């Protein structure tokens, strides 16, 4: 087996375990390359089908191409697409771009809070109607008890400590210091009422693995990752006020792989284009403890 085959096999195994154990299972899809690979792996695991909803948290500050890309694939691949957002904060302009919050506070409001309340079903969810192509209010308000997330251990410190199946309490809090044991591919699949489990099938993948797999499988990714002739591209995607392109002339997947292996990015962290990580050392850990992906 090649290393990509091994990674794929393990991720597929985890996805199938999740599917067997959680009645209310959902997968978070940020439209970025990692969660798109995750989605692809779900299609691998279930032979072309995706038997659970995909949840997207819309901050309204996402780069517009991302939303177009999301809906195009959702229709093409027959996905049960659901989104949620913090409409109240947006209406009241309680955001960083409106000058009311710091970057980190804004992340917490538009992403973490929206995520936690969308997952629990407290705030409305909108579901893609495949007949009309429009979003309608989702009748299903049941909390998702299993949430599949595309985090990778190599992204930053706190993620390197994650389990494949990671329990979250009622407030979505992550008890980092007291994680359950996990070995021999036996995962934590029993959980108390009111709590839920985050499932991380991509934990063992690196940024380079992701790109190599995208190339090998010919997975569609958003063109924002490629240089469109301006000498810059996005390496990591988020909201436009806080995500900046990096200088790069990589125009396709192969060129990105080359750049990661030998070029100037080989020693530079992937999230270096994400401003919120820099406000407080351990900032991302703080966010993640309270539910951020």
């Amino acid at each position: 087996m090649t290393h990509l085959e091994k990674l794929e096999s393990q991720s597929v195994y985890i996805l199938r375990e999740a599917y067997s154990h959680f009645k209310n299972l959902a997968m978070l899809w940020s439209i970025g390359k990692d969660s798109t690979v995750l989605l692809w792996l779900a299609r691998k695991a279930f032979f072309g089908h995706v038997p659970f909803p995909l949840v997207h948290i819309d901050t309204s500050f996402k780069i517009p191409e991302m939303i177009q890309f999301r809906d195009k694939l959702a229709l093409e691949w027959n996905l049960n697409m659901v989104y949620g957002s913090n409409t109240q904060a947006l209406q009241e302009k309680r955001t960083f771009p409106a000058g009311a919050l710091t970057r980190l506070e804004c992340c917490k409001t538009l992403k973490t809070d929206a995520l936690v309340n969308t997952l629990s079903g407290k705030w409305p969810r909108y579901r893609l109607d495949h007949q009309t192509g429009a979003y309608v209010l989702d009748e299903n308000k049941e909390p998702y008890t299993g949430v599949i997330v595309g985090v990778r251990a190599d992204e930053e410190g706190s993620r390197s400590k994650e389990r494949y199946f990671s329990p979250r309490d009622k407030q979505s809090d992550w008890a980092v210091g007291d994680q359950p044991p996990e070995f021999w591919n036996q995962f934590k699949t029993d959980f108390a009422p009111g709590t839920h489990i985050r499932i991380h099938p991509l934990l063992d993948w690196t940024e380079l693995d992701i790109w190599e797999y995208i190339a090998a499988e010919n997975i569609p990714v958003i063109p924002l990752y490629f240089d469109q002739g301006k000498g810059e591209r996005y390496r990591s995607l988020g909201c436009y006020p806080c995500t900046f392109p990096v200088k790069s002339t990589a125009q396709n997947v192969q060129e990105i792989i080359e750049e990661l292996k030998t070029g100037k990015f080989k020693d530079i962290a992937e999230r270096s284009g994400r401003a919120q990580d820099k406000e407080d050392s351990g900032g991302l850990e703080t966010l993640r403890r309270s539910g951020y992906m």
Partner: protein
Amino acid sequence: MTLSKLPKMNIVVVGHVDHGKSTLIGRLLADTHSLPQGKLEQVKAECRRHAKPFEYAFLLDALKDEQAQGITIDTARCFFKSKKRQYIIIDAPGHIEFLKNMISGAARAEAALLVIDAGEGIQENSRRHGYLLSMLGIRQVAICVNKMDLVEYRQEAFDKIEKEYRKFLKEIELTPKVFLPIAAREGENIINRPARMKWFQGPSLLEILDSFEKAPSPQDKPFRMPVQGIYKFTESGDTRRIFAGRVESGAVSVGDKVIFLPSNKRSTLKSIEGFNAPARKKISAGYSAGVTLTEQIYINRGDILCKEGEPLPHVSSLMKVKVFWLGKKPMAMGKEYKLKSGTSAVPVRLKEIKRVLDASALTKLNKKIVERNDVAEVVLESSRPVAFDLSSELETTSRFVIVDEYDISGGGIIAEVVKDEQSPVREQISIRDQMWDFSVIDPEQRALRYGHQSKLILLTGSVGMDKKTIAKELEKILFETGIKTYFLPMGNLLRGLDAHVESHRASRREHIHHLGEIAHLFLDAGIIVVATASNLTDEELRELQEVTERDSIVIANVGKNNFHGPIVALDLSEKENPVKNARKIVGFLKEKKVLL
């Protein structure tokens, strides 16, 4: 982070707390220039700002609490590479408090470095971790005697520790690859041969890492694929019925005769399914796969798909195992736990404690419970038979974990099969099914034609409870709705097939067996059999389940329920009108989709 197409290997670093595990890894990362640009300077600057001395461990201990307390709480994974391959180094915490984290990290590894502080010498967790490595099946271990600077780099100090620890490893049957003296903080013998220990001929730590070998793939072992799920996405227009799972060992090809255990069902491999992948005729160890079969048999998640003609797993409800216990509450006799092995999950009890070991000292403890961090040899009894291999035969399928309420609280390996009461029957049935000449009409076809599955509805309860009237009413209702059904009271069997048997009381077991065999024929013919038998015990029911098939029996109990296990599907009151009771059973059959 750059990782090229070099092979990958997982290495875990274990040992007692403060013996220098995190430092060793931090040093490896720094000296091989594997840290992200600027990381070393950034951490050093931060230390200066907070006026605390720089530690290489800070490069790994990423959690705030970890830096504040200066210890590793949970395993971290670090990536680094040598000329030969890429490593994923797992930093395991050494503190006893975090043993569950150490195991989580170590179980992933293909090789281990065990660190011992030269100054402090062998400590409790130096031993406990050594023992757990051997239980986790990690065979390649290098012992690093660290902080050699504290003993002025003297060879005698090193030799003394080596001698003592070798003796311990011998007891637990673990052969170390090498002992090597290092000083992680000083960078001695990490990537280069030591400058201050000329008496040591090498190798360096990096050379040792590169000399570890990849474990051979268990491809040449018997085929095992624990079933994760049976998928049919009919609503999306897909009619395939796919048995999904990962091949844990061996290989299987289209056309091979296969058997599911413990349910003992057989079929032939029709196809290997995939998505966006070239068509395959064969799958082998490591692949997450999906297969279809020529016959449409009913099986559940948890069975192991095996290949006929190869050594098969054992099937029993009793097994002798080695366990390590991590639960906050001790493992106690009589309490019900969940045993998860492969993809199966069954209720299990601790039947007997053979011995409890203090893993840190390897002394035998005289205890009646297995407490947190203990290692023990025990006998487990599951409420249903389980299919498994022994750790000496096939590692993956010999492993299990034990769940207490919501938490994985222990783990272990199965060392021996203990024959349970049903073992002789099971063997007979296995031969019967192997030699059986099957009809060309498969059960699903029959079920489709008849509009229902076949089932054995078994009415039981004490003598005097009127089971027969209910049974006859049930037969009537079913018959009138066009269902193929037949009333079979135990008494008819005694007067017919078993009329020659002299003492009915002494031969009760034989009668039960015969009831099972007759029901098996009816079930095979697609019929719903309505049988009655008084005073059925748990053990007798287990026998019936072996002779027919586990899921083909529905137990309806009239009056007081005398079973010990949770095996009654329907509790009926003897005071209720028999027709109402019969209707209740029909309702159950509809709900369970026995009637299609």
